[in-house]
C-alpha cells in the first residue's frame, strides 16, 4: 500500500528568540514511513522529539534538512503546505488551547470555513461531524462549558469536518480520565476503520500504544525501534532503557515467564487471547515454588485527620457536590481518592486545608503536637495551611518567582519573614522532590515540564506539612517521570508524611495506595484496600471505576487456569506484576 507519510532524513533545531540555533537538535536525521490507512503510535520519553516530528509532518515547523512528503505532496512551497494541512488534521494535548469558536458548532466550522467550503455543504459537514462524535445535541452550547473529554471530541469533530486523510494526535488523551480516554480512542479507531483515515498518535500511555498496528520509538531525535506492538514489547530491556514501560498485562506475562524460566516470544503477546494462553502455559510449566508474596499492609496508626458529615453545594443546595462525607485519615498512610471526573474529588480535597470552607460538617486535623485544628475556625486556618500541604493538578502553573529558590521559599516566607536556615530548607525541599541543586539558581520558566512539577512540589514540601494532598501528581508525565514521581511520594510516606492522593490511574492507585476512598456523585461509596474495591468487575463498575488493567488481565488468566485445573485455589490479586506472578505460580503448584 502507498505511504501516507514519508519523512526522509529530517533534521530540525529550535531557535532561540535571538534567532540562534539551540545546541541540541530536536530531530537528528529522522526517517519514518507510515502506510496509508494504518494506525500508528510514536512513543518516546519527554524531550525526545516526538511532538516536533508530528509538527514537521503537518508542516507546522519546517525541517532544516531532509524531505517531508505527505499524501504524495512534497512540502516545498507555501501552496503545498496548505494542501498538506488541509488533508492532515491535528489534535493537540490541551483541549482548551485549540478551541477557536465560542459555540460548539462555530468551532467545528472553523476549519472548513478556512477552506472556503460554501453553504449548504458547510452545514452538512458540520452536522455530520458533530453527529459522528456524539456532540450534535450540544451543538449550540458554549464550548468552554464542555467537559475535558467532550472538548477533545469537539477537536476531533473540528478535524473531521475538514475531511482529512491523516489524523495526528499529539498526546490528545493525556489530560483525560480513563472513561473519556477509552471513548476517545474508540472514536479514533472507528474513524480509522470506517473512513480509512491514517492515524498517527503520540502517547505516553502504553496501553494506548498496544492498541495500534505499528509503533515507532523515538529517542534523541531518531527512530530507535519500529515494529508491531508485539515486536516492540518483546524487547523489555530496550523499552526500559528508552524511559518507557510495558503495559501491565504484558508485564505480568513476563513476570510469570521469569518464574518458569521460559522465553516470551512475539506471538505470545500479540493479542489478549495469546497473552492469556501464554500466561497460563508459563504458569503451568513452572517447577520451583516462588516465595510467597505478601501484601504490604500497614497497621493503622494514630488518626491524623477526621472529616465528618461534610456536605457542599455550589448552587444553593439544589444539587450537592459533596454529600455527608465521613472519612478518617491515619498518620503515615497513602490514601488514594478515586472516582469519575466530576464526582467531587477536587471539591473534597479543596476542603482539606480550608481553601473551601465546609457548608456543613467539619474537617479536623489532629496535629502531632497534640492540638486539634478545624478548618471552620478562622484562627486555625494558618496552622492548617502550614500542616496540610495541597498540590493541585498541573502545579507548574503556580510558579512565579525570578528563581526556583525564591519560588520554593515563598510559602515559608509568607508564614514569617525571618527564617533561620532558609537556604538549607530550600535545598532540603528541592532534594526531597528530586530537583537538582543547580536548578535553584535558574528561572522556573526555563525548566522542563518534569522539573517544573518538582519545583512546585518543593514549594509545598518546604513547609514540612504533616499531611500532603496531591491532585493527580503524575498527570501528563512520561512513564519514567510517573515512576519517579511515585518513588518521591513513597519516600515522603516512609519519612512520616501522610499522603492523600487523587488519581485516575487505577493501576497506580492500587499499587501505591494503602487504602482507597471512592466518591461517586458526591457520596462516599467505598473505602478499603484495592483488592476489596476491585474484587470484581461488577463491583468496581458499581463504584463508577474502571478495573486496574493488571487485575482485569490477572482475573482472566485465573479464570482460564481454574477452567483447566478446577482443584487449585487462588489468592486475591496483587497490584504489583511480580507479586501477582508469584501468587499465580504458587497456586498452580499447590503451594500452601
Amino acid at each position, binding site marked *: 500500500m502507498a505511504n501516507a507519510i514519508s519523512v526522509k532524513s529530517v533534521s530540525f533545531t529550535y531557535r532561540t528568540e535571538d534567532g540562534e540555533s539551540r545546541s541540541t537538535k530536536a530531530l537528528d536525521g529522522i526517517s519514518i514511513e507510515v502506510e496509508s490507512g494504518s494506525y500508528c503510535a510514536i512513543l518516546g520519553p519527554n524531550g525526545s522529539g516526538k511532538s516536533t516530528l508530528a509538527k514537521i509532518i503537518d508542516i507546522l515547523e519546517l525541517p532544516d534538512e531532509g524531505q517531508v512528503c505527505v499524501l504524495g505532496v512534497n512540502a516545498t512551497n507555501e501552496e503545498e503546505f496548505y494542501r498538506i494541512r488541509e488533508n492532515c488534521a491535528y489534535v493537540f494535548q490541551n483541549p*482548551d488551547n485549540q478551541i477557536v469558536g465560542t459555540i460548539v*458548532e462555530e468551532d467545528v466550522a472553523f476549519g472548513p470555513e*478556512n477552506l472556503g467550503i460554501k453553504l449548504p455543504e458547510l452545514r452538512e459537514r458540520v452536522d455530520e461531524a458533530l453527529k459522528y462524535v456524539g456532540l450534535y445535541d450540544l451543538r449550540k452550547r458554549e464550548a468552554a462549558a464542555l467537559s475535558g473529554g467532550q472538548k477533545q471530541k469537539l477537536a476531533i469533530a473540528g478535524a473531521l469536518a475538514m475531511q482529512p486523510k491523516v489524523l495526528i494526535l499529539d498526546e490528545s488523551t493525556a489530560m483525560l480520565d480513563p472513561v473519556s480516554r477509552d471513548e476517545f480512542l474508540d472514536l479514533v479507531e472507528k474513524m480509522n476503520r470506517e473512513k480509512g483515515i491514517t492515524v498517527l498518535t503520540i502517547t505516553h500511555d502504553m496501553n494506548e500504544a498496544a492498541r495500534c498496528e505499528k509503533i515507532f520509538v523515538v529517542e534523541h531525535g531518531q527512530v530507535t525501534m519500529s515494529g508491531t506492538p508485539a515486536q516492540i514489547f518483546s524487547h523489555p530491556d530496550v523499552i526500559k532503557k528508552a524511559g518507557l514501560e510495558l503495559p501491565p498485562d504484558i508485564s505480568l506475562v513476563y513476570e510469570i515467564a521469569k518464574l518458569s524460566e521460559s522465553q516470551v516470544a512475539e506471538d505470545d503477546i500479540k493479542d489478549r487471547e495469546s497473552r492469556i494462553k501464554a500466561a497460563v502455559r508459563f504458569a503451568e510449566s513452572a517447577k520451583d515454588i516462588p516465595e510467597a508474596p505478601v501484601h504490604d499492609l500497614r497497621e493503622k496508626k494514630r488518626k491524623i485527620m477526621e472529616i465528618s458529615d461534610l456536605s457542599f453545594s455550589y448552587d444553593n443546595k439544589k444539587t450537592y457536590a459533596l454529600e455527608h462525607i465521613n472519612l478518617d485519615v491515619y498518620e503515615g498512610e497513602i490514601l488514594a481518592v478515586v472516582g469519575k471526573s466530576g464526582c467531587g474529588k477536587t471539591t473534597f480535597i479543596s476542603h482539606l486545608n480550608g481553601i473551601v470552607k465546609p457548608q456543613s460538617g467539619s474537617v479536623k486535623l489532629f496535629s502531632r503536637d497534640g492540638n486539634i485544628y478545624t478548618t471552620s475556625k478562622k484562627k486555625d486556618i494558618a496552622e492548617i*495551611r502550614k500542616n496540610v500541604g495541597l498540590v493541585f493538578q498541573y502545579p507548574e502553573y*503556580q510558579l512565579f518567582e525570578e528563581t526556583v529558590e525564591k519560588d520554593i521559599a*515563598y510559602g515559608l516566607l509568607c508564614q514569617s519573614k525571618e527564617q533561620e536556615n532558609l537556604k538549607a530548607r530550600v535545598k532540603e525541599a528541592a532534594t526531597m522532590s528530586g530537583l537538582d541543586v543547580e536548578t535553584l539558581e535558574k528561572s522556573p520558566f526555563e525548566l522542563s515540564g518534569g522539573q517544573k512539577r518538582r519545583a512546585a512540589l518543593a514549594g509545598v514540601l518546604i513547609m514540612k506539612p504533616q499531611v500532603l494532598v496531591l491532585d493527580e501528581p503524575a498527570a501528563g508525565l512520561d512513564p519514567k517521570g510517573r515512576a519517579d514521581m511515585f518513588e518521591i511520594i513513597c519516600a515522603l510516606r516512609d519519612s512520616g508524611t501522610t499522603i492523600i492522593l487523587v488519581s485516575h490511574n487505577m493501576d497506580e492507585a492500587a499499587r501505591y495506595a494503602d487504602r482507597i476512598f471512592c466518591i461517586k456523585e458526591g457520596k462516599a461509596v467505598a473505602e478499603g484496600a484495592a483488592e476489596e474495591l476491585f474484587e470484581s468487575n461488577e463491583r468496581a463498575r458499581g463504584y463508577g471505576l474502571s478495573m486496574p488493567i493488571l487485575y482485569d488481565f490477572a482475573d482472566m488468566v485465573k479464570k482460564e487456569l481454574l477452567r483447566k485445573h478446577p482443584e487449585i485455589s487462588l489468592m486475591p490479586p496483587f497490584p504489583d506484576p511480580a507479586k501477582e506472578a508469584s501468587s499465580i505460580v504458587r497456586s498452580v503448584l499447590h503451594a500452601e
Partner: protein
Amino acid sequence: MLNNISLGRYVDTGSVLHKTDPRVKVILYLVYLIAVFVVNSPVALLALFILTGIQLITAKIPLDVTWSTLKPVLPLALFIFILNALTIKQGDVLFTWRFITITDVGTTRAVLMALRLVFLILSTSVLLTLTTTPLKIADALESLLSPLKVFNVPVHEAAMMMSIALRFIPTLIEETDKIMKAQESRGANYDTGSFLSRLRGYITVLIPLFVSSFKRAEDLAVAMDARCYRGGSNRTKLNPLKITGRDIAVFILFLTGAAILIGIQVFFGN
C-alpha cells in the same frame, strides 16, 4: 468563587432578540448608549427603565441571570453614588453633619449617575453579550466596519482577535480561580494584611496567569495554523449574517422606543 459572574457571558434562551441580526443589535446598542448618557429627567429615566425591562423580557433573560450580571458592578455604582452625593454642594441642603453635607441636587445627580451605570451594564448585556455570541459580535463589527478595508484597516483580523479574546474569558476566569486557590494554599493573602502583602498576593496570581496566557496564545496560533487559517480572504461562514423582515421589525420597534425616550427627555428635561 469567580464562576457565578455572568458579566460578558452568553445565555441562550432562543428568544427573538437572540435571533436578531447582530448588526441590528450593535446599532441599537449605540443608540441606547447615547440615550443612557443624554437622559437626566426622572420621567425619561422611568421610560428608559421600562424600555430596558421590555428588552429583558423580549430576550427572555431569567431574573437571576440579570441579577448576577448586575451584582459585580453594584459596589462601583454605590461608590459613584456616595462620591457624587458627598462632593456636589449645589442646591438646597437636606442634611448636614460635621463635614458631610448632602444636597438635593447632589442626591439627584448621585442617583442618576449610579442608575446610568446600571443601565449601561444592562443595555450592554441584553443587547450584546447575553443575547449575542462573541463570534457574532465580531462578525457584526467586521461587517459594519468593512468599508474601512479600503483604507487598509485590518478589519477581519481585528474582529478575529476580539472574538478570540472573548472566547477565552471563561477559560481565564477558571484558570485565575485555580491559581488563586493554589497560591492561597501556599500562604498567599488577598484580603487581609497590609496593602503591600495583599498586592504581593495578587502578583503571585498575575504572573502565572500571564505566563500561561502566552503559552495558550502560542498553542492557539499553532492550532489555527493546523486548521488552515489564512486570514479573511476566501473564508466562508457557517452562519452568515442576513437581514430578515423580523430584524427590520425589531430595529424599527426599539428605534421608535429610543426616539420616544429622547422625545420625553426633550419635553421634560431642563
